[in-house]
């Protein structure tokens, strides 16, 4: 586990390398870790100065580095641990209409874990998230919540299990007012309320939109608002249903990175389960992946332990040549399977050295490659073609 000083040093490195945007977001994370109002105030002032700064990037970097250095004197309690947060055992859910059945689901999520939930549409991702959020009943099995939330009644428990649906509900009034209202309900009152809210607004890039209302925000910023609101609630378990659905490529990466850093917070770690169709992006930040097919789960990390998959290489490939030329080129490899879905080939073969021998063969035979990805350890291999 990373300690706070190491974290600040890492962030400083971003500024040294001129990654200002990433650095500043992580700088706010560091400030949030201190949970110190004076730090929040300085951070907000720094942001305002940065927003209005006409000076060059170097000066900004210097200021930020100075600020990060000043944070080192604060003691940050390390709450990061691998303690179990929630445990679902034998969960099954059958719907009266249709033949769909979800389960059996057995998962165990720890503080700081990010679980990715993937699968085709209509295979039970939302159902599983809602069950874990106690928003939907289940027929069999049990869900246990640990830490200090296990004694709470259903309502109070749900204040700690935050479920964000794909289509976030409309809210009214100004963005900042809504965040303040949320914070007040979570016991953040008075001047602290203003500081916490401003920190979250800055953290999620909402500063220029703080006085906007729902209809004035794009879908991406609506999702950022939801995340800002969620983190003000200091959740223990965060369940996100397709949070990347309406985001552009850059925003997807930013949101995922944000989630990763927030989950791994030193002072306030949390568990996150998110469903998404953006497999590769999700896999990059997830500790574990569940693949749902017609309600049945497959845990990717367990599946990859099987011998026949362990030594099998699966590659997603898009070329300009035809299939015959491809098959001729790959003849030296012992191909297990080759499929074409109209646009891309899925090539599977046994080899211990991964993608390297295949790439050599393709170059050797002058195959014109448009796109190639090794999906041997990706949930992509679990999808049909």
């Amino acid at each position, binding site marked *: 586990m990373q300690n706070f000083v190491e974290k600040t040093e890492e962030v400083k490195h971003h500024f040294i390398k001129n990654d200002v945007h990433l650095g500043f977001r992580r700088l706010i994370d560091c400030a949030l870790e201190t949970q110190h109002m004076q730090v929040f105030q300085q951070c907000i002032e720094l942001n305002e100065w940065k927003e209005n700064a006409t000076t060059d990037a170097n000066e900004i970097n210097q200021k930020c580095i100075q600020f990060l250095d000043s944070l080192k004197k604060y003691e940050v309690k390390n709450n990061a641990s691998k303690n179990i947060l929630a445990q679902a055992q034998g969960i099954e859910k059958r719907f009266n209409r249709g033949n769909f059945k979800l389960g059996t689901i057995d998962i165990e999520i720890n503080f700081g874990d990010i679980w990715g939930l993937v699968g085709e549409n209509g295979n039970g991702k939302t159902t599983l998230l809602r069950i874990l959020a106690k928003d939907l009943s289940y*027929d069999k099995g049990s869900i246990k919540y640990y830490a200090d939330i296990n004694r709470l009644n259903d309502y109070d428990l*749900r204040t700690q299990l935050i479920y964000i649906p794909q289509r976030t509900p409309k809210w009214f009034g100004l963005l900042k007012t809504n965040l303040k209202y949320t914070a*007040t309900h979570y016991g953040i009152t008075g001047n602290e309320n203003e500081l916490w809210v401003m920190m979250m607004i800055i953290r999620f890039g909402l500063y220029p939109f703080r006085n906007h209302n729902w209809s004035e925000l794009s879908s991406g910023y609506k999702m950022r608002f939801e995340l800002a609101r969620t983190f003000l609630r200091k959740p223990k378990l965060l369940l996100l249903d397709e949070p990347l659905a309406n985001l552009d490529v850059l925003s997807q990466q930013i949101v995922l990175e944000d989630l990763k850093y927030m989950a791994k917070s030193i002072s306030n770690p949390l568990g996150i389960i998110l469903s998404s169709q953006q497999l590769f992006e999700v896999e990059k930040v997830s500790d574990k992946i569940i693949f749902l097919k017609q309600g049945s789960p497959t845990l990717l990390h367990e599946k990859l332990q099987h011998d026949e998959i362990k030594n099998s290489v699966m590659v997603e490939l898009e070329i300009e040549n035809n299939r015959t030329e491809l098959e001729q080129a790959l003849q030296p490899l012992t191909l297990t399977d080759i499929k074409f879905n109209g646009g891309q080939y899925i090539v599977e073969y046994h080899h211990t050295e991964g993608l390297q021998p295949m790439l050599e063969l393709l170059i050797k035979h002058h195959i014109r490659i448009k796109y190639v990805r090794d999906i041997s350890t990706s949930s992509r291999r679990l999808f049909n073609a």
Partner: protein
Amino acid sequence: MFKNFQQYLLENKPIYYQTKFWQMMGVAIFIWLFSWVCGFMAIDVVELQRSSIRNFYFGSFAVVHIIIVVIVYVIWALAFFKTNAIQHFYPLSKFYHHKLFIQIVVPALLLVSAYYPYTYGIIVHTKLILNKTELINDALVANKAYPFLVQSKDAYNLEERIYPSPFPVNIIKKNDNNEWMQPTIFYHVKYTNHVIDTNGLAYFNPAICNSKTRIEGDEYILYTSHNESIKYDSCHIENYTLVDTFIIPSQQMVKHYRDVLNFSSLIIQQQNLPLDSFVSLTDKDYYQKYLVTDVHQIVNTKNAKAINDRINAFLAVCNKYKIKHTIVPQTITDYLIKNDFKIRYNLTTNNNYNLIYPETETAVADESAMVETVREKNAEEEKYLGYVEFESISNIYNNYNQAIHYEFENGICWVLISLALFLATFIVLAHSVDGVSGLLSIPATGIILLFCGLIAITVHHDESLIFIYCLIAACFIGFGFYNVRPSSISRRLTTIFMLLGFYAIPFFATLLFFVIHEFSKSRKQNMCSGTYDVYGYEAQPMHIILLGILLLFLYLPLLKKLKAKADE
């Protein structure tokens, strides 16, 4: 400053921020002041002649008030439903729903009760524009002129205008011996534990008189009556004898009665006069003391000037209070003098009883028909005498009396409290449950109530109690679904049942009242008439409302539990 206050509430008092409690209190106080001013402005001496001050609100201002309240609540609802902590599963403070309810019901109560400031505004202005001393003097002027005003705008009583009257107001009977009689007591009043024995006679028969005595020409007949009283606690019957009297008035006394009572009706009754010294006087005393001697003197001397003066003084009073009239005093005076004050019409009755006052049904009908004929004839013949709106004068005095002796109207108060409670409860429910369930619960409740009613009718037992039992059973089924099998029933269905529980609260409150009422009952044994029940507790509207609020407060925490229930 207002923004800062809003900001303070937002950052520190989320419930106050959401309910806009202080803003609504400000609006409510403004509406109270506005209503008071409107009430104050709405009244002048002409308006006071038209209606009772208690009813002015129910004119156009009630409509204005309703429109204002609706507009205020529409604006408020737009702000209130912007934020919803329970919908987002935010932590709720202890007694969240109770606080929410109180912060809604208090301004609601003030907002819907503009009746009171409006009426108080009227009262204050009434006291300012009417002067007590002047009113007393004006009443005397009006009453002194009234015997000579032989017309009114519409119909009028013959007794008020005919001199001498054919029908004395007090009933003076003749008995079987053709003697004048005036009973002093009534005999047919029955009390539950007091039996009056009149020796089996429907009316007094002098034959049973025990004794007679004569005082100042009037003969008093004394006789005994037997009374029986049963004491239930001791089961003891007490017999005792009373001495009652009948008076046989002398001829002189009969004449006196007839003279005195000729102008018996007063335009302004004594009880409406705001004069403390008159309090001890009856109408008759007031009439005799202040009016009758003068009236008789004027009639006897045919003093036209005096009549003119009185009518002129009366018209001055009318003008002062802007009371409409078309009277020309001289015309009336001429009419009275010309007819030698004999403005009476010969009425002949068909009864054979030789009574001055007709007693039989036939005679009464005969009299009514004759009176109507005379009235129509007079109205036509005496049109030219003009009219005055007598009712306007009475209304002024009635309103002044109501203004100085205003009694708080409890009935309206209970209605307004119930309305505010209903409004607040509805808002809290709408805030806590989803809209579709809330709407579905209304017809669902209607169907269940209908079903309960049908069972009650079919069983044909004590219908009201069976109705309540069925309703309770339905509510318990709802609570049972919720608590026993939480996962098997959808949130929507559970919500509908829970709301049914809410709608049943007034019934629960009433039922509880019945139970308390029944518990306070003690049955007492009486050897003479079996058993009888004594109740130690009688319900008051306040008790039922408090009970309803208590039940509502017990019910409100369930909303949080309901919200947390997982969907099916």
